[in-house]
């Protein structure tokens, strides 16, 4: 089949698709496979049972979809090269390769250094759970020293020790991956612009490409939103845990104030009869409140990661007649790239 058009222009577009558009998607996938990983104990021992499975499943599903998106860009470039051959051009699709252009650095926070924290704060990804946790732990430990019945609260609190560095890194990594996918999309639209001159719209192969591109655009748009969804789930969980921690800190601080007052009263002759018993009751109550707060934090994490379960609930159920219905795009469900045979 002979196609009318400019084969050199087609090859140029194919090469450009394999430059920034491909490079950004490839880097997004690499980010999801690396810095987006989150240790199971990021929110502490207690929530780990809810975190490990759903989060990794969601991360893996989005990373695989992104990898498939990158492969589709390669296939798109090959398709353009095949069209160029059909136009009479000499260059074969198998001579094309990604050109790896230099990209601006990512803003992923990779450690707990001040400069990294500043960058993370700039993108709203800095996590401050540890300060609350340590402050509250100090208050609980003091309660335990003055009222041994409160010691159980110290042990319970240890179950929700957060990992600020890992959480900050994962959130900023998802945000970075989302920005890379956005950049890829913008570059792709830019690089496809010259197609109109090189490939006439009345050609049947061009019309086949235009039909193919509709579901591709829908899939790619959906893919762009996925990293933000995971980042929002993580950030939302962090914000809620922070609120619970702060409330509990003030409750624990109030209990400590009462225990200190009662401890001092122990030294007053004829006054210490009720003080010791009240201290013990306060200590037991604080331990129960700590236990319930630990469960609340675990519940917050469960809710957040249940939302991620829903996100990956039906991969592969892409229905061409119902674009946008699937949670994560499946690029493998796109029609085959055989534009020149249309």
């Amino acid at each position, binding site marked *: 089949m002979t196609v009318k058009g400019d084969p050199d222009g087609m090859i140029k577009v194919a090469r450009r698709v394999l430059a920034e558009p491909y490079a950004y998607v490839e880097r997004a996938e690499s980010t999801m496979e690396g810095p987006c990983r989150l240790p199971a104990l990021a929110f502490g021992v207690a929530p780990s049972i809810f975190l490990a499975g759903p989060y990794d499943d969601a991360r893996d599903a989005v990373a695989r979809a992104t990898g498939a998106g990158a492969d589709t860009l390669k296939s798109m470039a090959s398709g353009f090269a095949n069209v160029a051959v059909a136009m009479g051009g000499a260059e074969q699709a198998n001579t094309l390769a990604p050109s790896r252009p230099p990209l601006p650095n990512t803003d992923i926070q990779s450690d707990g250094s001040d400069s990294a924290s500043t960058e993370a704060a700039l993108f709203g990804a800095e996590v*401050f759970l540890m*300060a*609350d946790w*340590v*402050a*509250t732990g*100090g*208050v609980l430990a*003091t309660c335990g020293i003055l009222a041994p019945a409160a010691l159980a609260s110290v042990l319970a609190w240890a179950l929700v020790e957060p990992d600020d560095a890992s959480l900050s890194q994962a959130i900023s990594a998802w945000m970075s991956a989302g920005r890379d996918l956005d950049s890829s999309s913008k570059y792709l639209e830019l690089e496809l612009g010259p197609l109109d001159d090189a490939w006439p719209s009345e050609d049947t192969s061009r019309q086949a490409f235009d039909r193919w591109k509709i579901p591709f655009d829908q899939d790619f748009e959906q893919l762009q939103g996925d990293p933000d969804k995971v980042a929002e789930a993580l950030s939302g969980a962090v914000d809620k845990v922070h609120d619970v*921690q*702060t409330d509990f*800190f*003030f409750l624990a*601080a*109030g*209990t*400590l*104030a*009462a*225990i*200190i*007052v*009662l*401890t*001092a*009263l122990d*030294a*007053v*002759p*004829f*006054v210490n*009869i*009720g*003080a010791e018993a*009240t201290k013990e*009751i*306060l200590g037991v*109550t604080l331990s*129960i*409140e700590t*236990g*319930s*707060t630990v*469960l*609340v934090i*675990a*519940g*917050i994490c469960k809710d957040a990661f249940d939302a991620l379960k829903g996100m990956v609930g039906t991969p592969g159920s892409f229905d061409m007649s119902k674009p946008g219905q699937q949670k994560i795009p499946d690029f493998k469900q796109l029609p085959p790239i055989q534009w020149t045979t249309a």
Partner: protein
Amino acid sequence: MNPDSYDARRLLDQLETQIARAQENATAVAAVAGWGEAANGQVKVCVGPSGVLKKVELDPRAMRMASEDLAASIVEAARGAERAAAASIREIYSSTDTGGIDVAAVAQGEYDPSADIEQRLAKAREALRQAG
């Protein structure tokens, strides 16, 4: 205290201040003497911070009262003294965070923690219900 800007040194300083204040208050409580009177001042009673009788002063005219009336006046004066002692204790703690505890009631053995504890446990139960 603000947990968001955690500083171990600051927290320790605040704790030491709280303990020093608690000790000062406890010393002041130990010195509390609550006075109460009855029968137009003919019966005066002094109690310590826990309500324990420390002193009873009877005007000579009180000795002419019927024994039942005198006994009732002493009880009345003692109750007034207990209330005065409680008021003094509350005044001592008026500018101190006691974590919601009524120190006067604790000192006089009248503190019933059940209502406070039930309130806090209800919060814990609600939290557990939401987490479940």
